[in-house]
């Protein structure tokens, strides 16, 4: 097992390197330079001034040398400084991560709370009215553009009813509130973004829960449980649902990297300074250090997620680890 683990981890390093080479190449292939943002197409900024800026940012160096410099920094766990405001990239990410993480964890929790019971209940009586209704409902959510839903919610709950704030994370006078009032204020600001994010992603998980539950309910041990004379609720929840949840947990494990990636659209509409907007703004401004840092972190998390899933399989199925070790 240790040898298998070691093999797998070592195998990740070239993949990771290859990912960084590719993404470095691709973002530099895209036309445009970081110096376009502030200094581009402004008659008050001469050609010489722009060339001087490019030199200061090291953009006059050949690409492989720029990459080597970036990799050297990364080896010392230094993501460099943003071209946009010269702040350390890691500081910029640290500033954005908590918000995105909060929203994603909350909406994932909400999805779990709603999708699993919904799917399971639908599976109990397949093709019943309830099943059809939830199917239609979750697919409406799935196919609805989130920006449209967000704007409608803002217009109804914010503009018409005045129940909820429209955008942002805090009220303007949040600093003068007491602790409790401040938490309440933050919660109110989070309701719409979390709801919108959850509503549009209900479909996937609830369909998985449904089919997984259907599968389980056909198993012999369910018939056995019923034959033993167990109560229906015990059959469904203890024997049925618990087994149906196994594949769902695998899916959840694989969605770990998604937790740190924010949605550009939702963050822009709700004026939330999260990871999605950071990435989008970095791409638009060709802020190479920020783009590379986010791509690398995303790649590492995805690879780790895959590794964890594989390890779980290997642990469960000896054929995999033996086969790997032999080859």
């Amino acid at each position, binding site marked *: 097992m240790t040898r298998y683990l070691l093999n797998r981890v070592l195998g990740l390093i070239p993949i990771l390197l290859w990912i960084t080479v590719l993404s470095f190449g691709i973002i530099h292939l895209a036309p445009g330079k970081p110096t376009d943002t502030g200094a581009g197409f402004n008659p008050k*900024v001469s050609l010489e001034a722009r060339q001087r800026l490019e030199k200061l940012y090291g953009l006059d160096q050949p690409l492989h040398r720029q990459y080597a410099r970036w990799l050297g920094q990364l080896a010392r766990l230094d993501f460099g400084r943003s071209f946009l405001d010269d702040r350390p990239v890691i500081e910029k990410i640290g500033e954005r991560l908590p918000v995105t993480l909060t929203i994603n964890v909350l909406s994932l929790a909400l999805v779990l709370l709603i999708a699993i019971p919904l799917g399971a209940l639908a599976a109990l009586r397949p093709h019943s009215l309830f099943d059809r209704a939830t199917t239609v409902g979750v697919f409406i959510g799935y196919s609805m553009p989130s920006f449209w839903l967000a704007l409608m919610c803002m217009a109804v709950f914010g503009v018409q009813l005045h129940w909820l704030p429209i955008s942002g994370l805090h009220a303007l006078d949040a600093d003068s509130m007491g602790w409790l009032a401040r938490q309440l204020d933050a919660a109110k600001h989070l309701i719409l973004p979390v709801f919108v994010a959850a509503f549009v992603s209900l479909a996937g998980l609830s369909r998985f829960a449904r089919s997984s539950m259907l599968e389980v309910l056909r198993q012999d041990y369910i018939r056995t449980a019923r034959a033993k004379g167990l109560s229906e609720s015990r059959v469904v929840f203890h024997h049925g649902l618990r087994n149906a949840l196994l594949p769902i947990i695998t899916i959840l494990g694989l969605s770990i990297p998604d937790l740190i990636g924010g949605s550009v659209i939702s963050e822009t509409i709700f004026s939330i300074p999260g990871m999605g907007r950071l990435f989008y703004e970095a791409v638009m401004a060709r802020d190479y250090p920020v783009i590379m840092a986010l791509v690398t972190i995303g790649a590492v998390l995805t690879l780790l997620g895959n590794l964890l899933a594989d390890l779980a399989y290997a642990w469960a199925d000896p054929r995999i680890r033996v086969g790997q070790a032999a080859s």
Partner: protein
Amino acid sequence: MATRWRRRVGLGLLGSLGIIGAVCAQSSTTDTGRPATGDALVVGSIGDASRLLPILATDSASGEIVGLLFNGLLKYDEHLHVAADLAQSWDVSPDGLTITFHLRPNVRWHDGQPVTADDVRFTYDKLIDPNVKTPFSSSYELVDGVDVLDPLTIRVRYKEPFAPALESWMMGIIPKHALEHEDLNTTKLLRHPIGTGPYTLAKWKTGELIALAANPNYFEHRPYLDRYLYRIIPDEATLFLELLTGGVDLSGLTPLQYARQANTPFVEREYQRFRYPSFGFTYIGYNLQDPRFSDARVREAIDRAVDKQAILNGILFGLGAVATGPYPKESWAYDPSVQPLPPDRDEARRLLAEAGWTDHDGDGWLDKDGQPFRFTLITNQGNDVRKQVAELVQQQLKGVGIQVDIKIIEWSTFVHEFIDKRRFEAVLLAWSLARDPDLYDLFHSSKTKEGEYNFCGYANPEVDRLLVEGRRTFDQTKRQDIYRQVHRILAHDRPYTFLYVADALPIIHRRIRNVVSSPIGIGYNMIDWYVPPGEQRYRSRPTLQQ
């Protein structure tokens, strides 16, 4: 979807000078009551600031904030005349080679240190320092030297007379005592600025809010509004919804919002709308190396075939004015004798026929030597107004038998692959311009290298001579003659088809009093804005004013 940020061409320097808006014909309510301190002004902005140091503030958000935190030696007054700021007076030597600034005494930095000529010298040194990441060095290339004569007097020597220099000294002056041992590119003062301006930075939550607090010791007087809160709301639709619920006091509107959406009873009751021309113009530029467009008759024919008023009415809801040249009507450089050409298709066809373009084969399109008159008009992605203008131009030129294809290209690709490399036939773009009428970079025949701005390849020796002379002349009357002449020649030569000058469309909450619109816009007297005590909405918190 939010590609519109940073799409404002050439706003860099203007922003860093803290100039909001432009010229205006209408004025507004002024309050007769006594100004009171208190309350906050909540401003909605699409973008966040990045660096709060004047010489590094390149985006318009940074420029706006820096304009409230810092002062230049000079500024523009409400009538667009050069006026005193940190300098209480200035003299230009008769040969135009030296400018001497006399600083206002007893001005202090936010941290209490006095402002002296050394700070000005330091600012200049950093502007031309090759290791500082400022793009603004080009305005100081002609400076021969800067001498500190005494703590309140500084003399700038030029290699040759350079009239736009006065505008260049509107750059915010930075504190030597706080920065001399710092690396300007990474100093913590980029996020914790020390300036001289009417407001100080209280708090900056990235991507969310920049809070400014009134500077009680501001040299003119303490601003009445206690706080200036700059909310970052990157989506235009959200920004508008915030206006509808009173979450934002001041914001710019799009023509559509101004004309169609902002006339609800609530908005009418709560807000005051302003409208004045922005400094800049939208145009069609031609690649003058293309034999079709190097023919002046063809350019005149297109000028006559394009109905600019129809474009304005149809797309901007009439919120703008037809352009006859590079200056808006309110500029002193604008020549009122240049009249817009009335649209005239018959005359356009006649001119085209004279140039050899007629419909020989009867397919509805003009042709010459067997080639149909067909060209591609390119413009940048992310600007819906521009896209619609291109479509209307396409329609209008179809009316005279010219076939136009439209290509919309992502900004960076647009600039580097098409404009810089001259791979275009015609381009639809806009320039935002400084208040000084100098157009050397746009129309001088020397500015045609890759990455320079005379990308149409316009060359007229007379314009070259006038543009050089305009830079060497300080006398306003003589400069006026020069630039009006430039205006007339450009209107005659038509390297561009000048389309329109769009209006700036700010909207502001009615409880804010003393908002006056003038030729420079509405922001120039912000320190005099106030809210009567009974109508104040936000309580101030003394802890903010550290």
